């Protein structure tokens, strides 16, 4: 029995040696950097595509874990990732609790109101009506206020079956942020956040969960991330914006919602007062530390991180957003971000 061990151990060691050797020689041929990021799941299809393209062109490997915005920020705080993805910008209070960071928007999306109404081809909604439906004040499809918005459409005499997200989500945060802006009573009673205590309806996990309930349940209504709704061709309502226009959610109407932005790009663009703007639109950000020397990261790694962000802002990448059902950034967001990236340092030296 003992005699058997020796050859096994030697061959295992030999294998390990050759494997290591192979790895080493490969690395000296071409030095590639491995970057890790984690966070928002909302832009995941866009990131997967862009990061893969990026790897194909320059060899850097990027691993992005869709663990949710909160998780991404937690990982950045722990210093175990190079960048975090988040659907919500950090609040002033959160900014104070950590080292200075730079927010870089990468694309835009929206929240759409999906519905399942047999025999109704198009549905119009307004902010106040949505807020009152979610507050349980409007319970029937043939409510007078819904009828007023949908002249010429026969709305069924049925109860509205509501769906919302059960998991903490940026989608909920954007949606309720909008409700707070359009309804004072919503703001005072329920507020906004990644999870909100909705008084009526049922909840399901993720966009697929909510979309599943809507697809399976006649007379239902729910909110879904636009990237999912566009990809799945889910019927969604037109919304009345601040300008009094009824707007269909689309990449163009989402991009139109970005008005004048602050220097650090941290702002909410829901209920935007712009022409043709879809009112529940949002940015998604990648967040990095201003000072890139942390957790023993090398300068090459820091440079690669900034390089990746610049790539995400480039025209060629922005043009691909709509192929994966997102909306491109407006000019101003790109120019502000490129300027902000100049302030990123390594050991105090600009990169």
């Amino acid at each position, binding site marked *: 029995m003992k005699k058997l061990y020796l050859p096994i151990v030697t061959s295992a060691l030999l294998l390990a040696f050759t494997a290591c050797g192979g790895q080493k020689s490969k690395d000296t041929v071409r030095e590639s950097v491995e970057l890790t990021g984690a966070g928002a799941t909302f832009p995941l299809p866009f990131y997967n595509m862009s990061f893969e393209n990026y790897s194909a062109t320059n060899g850097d490997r990027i691993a992005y874990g869709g663990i949710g915005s909160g998780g991404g920020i937690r990982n950045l705080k722990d210093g175990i990732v190079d960048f975090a993805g988040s659907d919500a910008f950090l609040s002033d209070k959160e900014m104070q609790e950590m080292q200075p960071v730079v927010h870089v928007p990468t694309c835009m999306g929206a929240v759409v109101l999906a519905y399942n109404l047999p025999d109704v081809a198009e549905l119009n909604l307004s902010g106040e009506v949505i807020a009152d439906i979610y507050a349980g004040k409007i319970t029937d499809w043939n409510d007078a206020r819904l009828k007023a918005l949908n002249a010429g459409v026969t709305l069924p005499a049925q109860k509205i079956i509501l769906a919302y997200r059960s998991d903490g*989500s940026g989608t909920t945060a954007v949606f309720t942020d909008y409700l707070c802006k359009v309804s004072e009573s919503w703001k005072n009673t329920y*507020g906004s956040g990644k999870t909100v205590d909705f008084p009526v309806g049922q909840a399901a996990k993720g966009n697929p969960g909510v979309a599943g309930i809507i697809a399976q349940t006649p007379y239902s209504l729910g909110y879904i991330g636009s990237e999912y709704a566009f990809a799945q061709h889910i019927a969604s309502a037109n919304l009345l914006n601040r300008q009094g226009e009824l707007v269909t959610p689309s990449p163009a109407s989402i991009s139109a919602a970005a008005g004048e932005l602050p220097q650090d790009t941290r702002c909410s663009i829901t209920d935007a007062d712009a022409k043709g703007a879809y009112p529940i639109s949002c940015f998604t950000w990648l967040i990095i530390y201003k000072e890139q020397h942390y957790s023993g990261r090398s300068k090459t790694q820091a440079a690669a991180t900034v390089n990746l962000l610049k790539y995400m802002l480039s025209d060629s990448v922005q043009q691909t957003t709509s192929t994966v059902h997102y909306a491109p950034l407006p000019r101003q967001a790109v120019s502000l971000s490129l300027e902000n990236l100049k302030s990123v340092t390594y050991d105090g030296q600009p990169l």
Partner: protein
Amino acid sequence: MQDKLFRSCLFLSAIVIPLIGGGILLSLTADASGAFETFGFWHFICSDQWVTTAGQENYGALPFITGTLLTTLLALLLCIPFSLPVALFTGEYFRGRKIATVLGTVTDLLAGIPSIIYGLWGFYVLRGVFMHLGLSPQGSGILTASFVLSIMIVPYAASLSAEFIKMVPSDLKEAAYAIGATRAEVIRRVIFPVAGPGIFSAYILAIGRALGETMTVTMLIGNTNQLPDTLRTTGNTMASIIANQFGEADGLKLSSLIAIGLLLFLITAVINMIGKLLIQRARHV
């Protein structure tokens, strides 16, 4: 020398599992302490508030404890008419015959189906049926979740019950037949009294399984954080609230979720312990 080595190896691997279990308990307790300190242990258990709004955060576990106990008990009740006949079929009526082996194997197979598949079936098929029958206005809810759970725990209850039914001594049964008892009477007067504690423990172990079931319940229960008032309404269980909200939670909310996890850990441990104790006692009879 070799014997000694072997023994210490065995000892090492035997100690690893209890160590891991203890470690889990320890870290759960440490992370949950924040919630217990803020709200107080009993208040946390008895409060039905789940307010996530920043600044007014207030967490209580009562809706989820209620949801867990409701779904589990209902699942248990619904599972009895499925599992007891199967146990009698395989353990008494057709004992040792081919048809019993087939039925026993098929029932055991149910245990091997991943819970997500039960969830999908419930979501796409059962919800529609429940809505159609008017059992639930929105299809999902405590009743739907319990129904699928009951099917999931049938194999656990049935195969163990069958074992205990098989263990009933033949001389007892033969004696009953000799004095003119019918088969139904033998089952009622001999098998149930003798195998009773064993069958009971089988159901306790099935409860243990239903308590912690996460995926299926999350897909079917409707995930609302209010205290359920009827079985037709939606709710949430301890496992499903953790699965739903863990991803984006931090601070006090994270601590509260972990506290719910700790409570679930303790409830499941106690119930399994009771089941094990009962099995031991039943085997000695």
